[in-house]
């Protein structure tokens, strides 16, 4: 009986293989997918090589430089037309100055077709667990316990020329907004859902650019005046809420490039 069962299974397998082998349709092409994180100040690219130059002018008219830019994106997901999610990465830490983290390679190949790309700026509350990520701890990315713990979303720093014409350091740090720092801190999730729309995966490799337009942090809907808000912003609940509002349109889909053979 057992032998007969084994034989039957074997025949089914062989037939199934044959059926596939004889199929005239072309096998689905699978593509390597890479997410490429870039930064710009409107149309000016921002890379480590432009760091520390007072090259940029924000909406409020302040001339500024960028000398450190680190940020975290989480829940990076491609969703196919059937609504099935594939997580590319739980989180990605981008350090522009160290030229690290800009390229995120998906751990699996994707069949050609249309997908929607989504991610989150910073960690959602559910993932923003104090001390939970050893690599981020080593990168000194944590937020102190009196401010609720967890992790920064972004550290953007540099110099701006203030209203008295003095070069002044700024620290534009975004975190989960915290009221009443200390034992009774009240937290507001100010991470930002980023939905980048439809991307087409094609050929042997697909590279999808996701660009941060830094200028957006300073203008929409809140006109940002660095003379008022340039330092010690982490414990400033209202500033963090404004950053969240201004950050809604910071990330956009950039170029998508393909390698077909």
């Amino acid at each position, binding site marked *: 009986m057992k032998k007969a069962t084994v034989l039957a299974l074997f025949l089914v397998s062989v037939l199934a293989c044959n059926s596939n082998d004889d199929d005239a349709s072309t096998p689905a092409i699978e593509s390597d997918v890479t997410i490429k994180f870039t930064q710009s100040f409107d149309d000016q690219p921002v890379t480590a090589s432009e*760091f*520390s130059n007072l090259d940029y002018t924000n909406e409020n008219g302040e001339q500024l430089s960028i*000398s*450190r830019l680190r940020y975290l994106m989480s829940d990076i997901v491609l969703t196919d037309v059937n609504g099935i999610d594939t997580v590319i990465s739980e989180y990605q830490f981008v350090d522009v100055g*160290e030229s690290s983290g800009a390229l995120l390679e998906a751990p699996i190949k994707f069949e050609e077709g249309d997908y929607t790309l989504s991610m989150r700026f910073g960690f959602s509350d559910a993932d923003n667990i*104090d*001390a939970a990520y*050893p*690599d981020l*701890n*080593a*990168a*000194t990315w*944590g937020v*102190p*316990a*009196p401010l609720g*713990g967890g992790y920064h979303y972004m*550290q953007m*720093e*540099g*110099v701006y020329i203030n209203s008295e014409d*003095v*070069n*002044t*350091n*700024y*620290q534009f740090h975004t975190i989960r907004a915290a009221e009443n720092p200390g034992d009774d801190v009240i937290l507001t999730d100010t991470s930002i859902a980023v939905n980048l729309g439809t991307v087409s995966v094609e050929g042997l490799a697909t590279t999808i650019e996701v660009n941060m337009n830094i200028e957006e942090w300073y203008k929409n809907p809140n006109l940002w005046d660095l003379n008022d808000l340039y*330092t*010690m912003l*982490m*414990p400033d609940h209202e500033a963090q809420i404004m950053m969240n509002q201004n950050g809604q349109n910071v990330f956009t889909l950039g170029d998508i490039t393909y390698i077909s053979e």
Partner: protein
Amino acid sequence: MKKHILLCISLALLTSCGSDESDPVAYVPTPAQIDTPLIFQQLLPAAVIPEDNPLTEEGIALGKRLFYDTRLSLDNSISCASCHKPQEGFSDNNAVSLGVDGTPGTRNSMPLANLAFNYFGNFNWDGSATTLEEQHEIPITSSIEMHNTFADITTMISADASYPLQFEQAFNVTTVTKTEVTKALAQFVRTMVSGNSKFDKYLLGEATLTPQEQNGLDVFLDETRGDCFHCHGSPTNPLWTDNIFHNNGLDTSFEDRGRGNITGDPNHFGQFKSPSLRNLAYTAPYMHDGRFATLEEVVNHYSEGLVYSDTIDPLMKSIAQGGVHLTENDKQDLIAFLLSLSDPTFINNPAFLPN
């Protein structure tokens, strides 16, 4: 006859292969591991151990012997431990290190602790070495430090009564080169882990902070007061350094360009690596040039003494006023907290002391 000759040749080949690549009597060193503190296990990635230099008991012991051997210097006058003294937190109390002829160098001796947990591949104040093996080449050959050559060192090792056997057992070599010397030193230094301070115990629920230490921690973590955590970590980063480079407002211009000497980038002039805040009780004086004799001077610098330069780190605040002007109470409490990061068991650990 031909068959016999072929058989003999085959046997000879097999015999010679065996002796070169898999000598059945070759000594196999004993694998070793870093004694990783519990708090590191909970919070940090694993230590960085290069695949081509795994830790072994024999390699570590050999590295320790080399570390304390004055014959590594040109005139046999100083060893690694001359500038990295155990009781001084494996640093020394000179503002800048003294070389073989007593001539002062240019930098303060960096404390040696937890270097196996430097994940960013940058060693020395300026990141001039990208591995610990590479790091050990620099002081040995520097003309203002040990001023020796590896040719002379390997000659000394070959003539020594016991070094050749130690190298053979650690690395399976009969001819010692720079590679094995630096590998052994790196193995020993990687084992030098400090994670048993009062504050570590506090994090593990085994100690209580005094009110002064607790307020000092609050100052350290408060962006409007100390704001020390952005460069030196926090309770979630028990290394107490970010292991990256900053210009912390010491000077308006730079005789020593620091990181800029390595990269050539003017934006890096005056940048030096954040040192760990562990073991400050033993490692005075402070800063890359040892200019501050006490922690009070260090805290006063950040509170009132910052000066502007083109590359000053943007994390430095209120520079026009010299800093954020901490209260005297906050200063003293901050120092009390900093001292809670010192680890007496580290500097007295027999594993790191001379035999």
